[in-house]
């Protein structure tokens, strides 16, 4: 996503427990966190951060249902309308024989649909320039970032104080 660059003030923590404590403090103080970046999925972070459960799995169901219908209807149309062929005296519309392919189409549509949706809503594709705040975030640092593009001096001081209070190991500023 090619939006204009933002000035970001971020703190790095050495441990996920420190990070969780910091996020808890921030939400208690109603601070507006821009993003939290971690090297691995930190369990128990989503509720404190106020993230709602992902709705991706609903889409997975919908894509799967589309795949099932598509597969089944194409086979039914081909064997009853377009080109009916008699195989061994069985009915043209031999539903049990359509089950395996219908199942495979369900899985295929659901998996591809969900994966494409995942990359699209996360804004991730080959060639996307990653907005890297710090290269150690994918290694062993846990980051809380605030957007300070339009922040006043008081607000900046407040955020710095917050980092100090929550024992951030490092505090840096970066344009991304």
């Amino acid at each position, binding site marked *: 996503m090619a939006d204009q660059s933002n000035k970001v003030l971020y703190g790095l923590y050495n441990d996920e427990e420190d990070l969780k404590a910091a996020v808890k403090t921030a939400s208690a103080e109603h601070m507006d966190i821009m993003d939290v970046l971690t090297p691995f999925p930190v369990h128990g972070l989503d509720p404190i951060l106020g993230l709602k459960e992902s709705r991706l*799995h609903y889409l997975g169901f919908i894509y799967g249902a589309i795949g099932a219908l598509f597969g089944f209807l194409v086979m039914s149309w081909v064997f009853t309308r377009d080109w009916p062929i008699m195989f061994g005296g069985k009915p043209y519309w031999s539903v049990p024989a359509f089950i395996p392919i219908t199942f495979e189409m369900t899985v295929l549509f659901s998996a591809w649909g969900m994966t494409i949706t995942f990359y699209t809503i996360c804004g991730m594709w080959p060639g996307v320039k990653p907005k890297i705040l710090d290269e150690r975030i994918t*290694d062993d640092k846990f980051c809380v970032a605030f957007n300070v593009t339009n922040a006043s001096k008081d607000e900046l001081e407040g955020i710095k104080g917050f980092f100090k209070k929550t024992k951030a190991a490092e505090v840096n500023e970066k344009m991304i």
Partner: protein
Amino acid sequence: MSQAVAPVRHILIEGNKSYHNITEDLVSPTEKAPSREWIIAFSLSAAFLALYVFCVTWTIWKGIGEWGLNRTINWAWDITNFVWWIGIGHAGTLISAILLLFRQRWRTGVNRAAEAMTIFAVICAGQFPLIHMGRLWLAFFIFPFPNSRGPLWPNFNSPLLWDVFAISTYFSVSLLFWYTGLVPDLATVRDRAKGFRKKMYTIFSFGWTGSAKHWQRWESLSLILAGISTPLVLSVHTIVSFDFATSVIPGWHTTIFPPYFVAGAVFSGFAMVQTLMVITRKVLNLKEYITINHIESMNKVIVLTGTIVGVAYLTELFIAWYSGYIYEQFAFYNRVFGIYWWSYFGMMFCNVVSPQVFWSRKIRRSVWWTFFLSIVINIGMWFERFVIIATTLARDYLPSSWSYYRPTMIEIGLFTGTLGLFFFCYLIFTRVAPVVAIAEVKSILKVAGNQFIGKNANKNGNGNH
């Protein structure tokens, strides 16, 4: 992590590690120059790959007549190899999907490599039906698409077409699952790389940053992909077994085939995972991540599935006798004592007898025994498919057309060539991507590590609970 973990659980990450140590250990194989062992193995597999290319070209140029097939035995090594490779692939999906649903933490050490194995094994498997079509350039006729021949559609009632859908779905879904799991780790490699490597990993890591929302969606996606891959993997080998089970050939026409094939697939797949892991942990120095506990867990799966397969073999014989149907009885008598008796006894020994030594904890935890038996089991599972396919066809309804099958050099070259293709791909994979899932290992470090040495480490020196 706040999950409750019983203190009796095995340690899954050995040595005193911090998060940074894990990154170092797991990324460094992709950064260092290849070791001498790697270069030797790579040259060897490249040589077999070249042999494969030659044999494929030869077959396509001259035709299927270059194989040892005849009118009676019209399926033999090709389909044996196909089923063997597909079966091997199943362990990867089992480890990554079914064990994820069962919340088995030991999967994190081996899932990445096992999923890679699945993908390469399915690539190898897909070669055989394609080459057997003879006119490879018309292979796309197997897909239903509007065409100028009527349009003429494939037969949706045929298990061979179900196979086309099953295998292609299996391949593409496994690829998505594997790659999506790989993206955060490729980002880790990217953030340590410089110059050209950085550019490449930037492209392949899709701009991953590690945002909390992205992790949440990533976990949701992984879970659902695991959920749909589980019935998928069961369906794939079920459908492969339908290739035989829906026919009217005595010895093939049995309802036991689907579960028996699936158990056999998991069995052979775990054996191949063991072969690969024993080598990988040694060559890439990953003994602290792929521990003896991982090897033991997989050996337990092997002894279970091997025994299921053994029960299936005996059930088959019993039911053939119990049916009171002479053709069925003959088919199984012929399978055991017929012209290919040696392959039946080879199969029985390798698949049913040999894994029983894994009841001993000492042998289960021995790297050498594991490596040796994993190869024995793979040979045994190859024999199983050969027994089912060739023995059955060699003695058909009409004694005047009974025949014997011998593979030609070209067929042997094709089979050993796919081994070359498989190891060629796997060795490249070990050089370009982390073989162990970095993020997933980090997420279990505090609950399953030997001793976490970072901040907030448990002061008793035991981070196991």
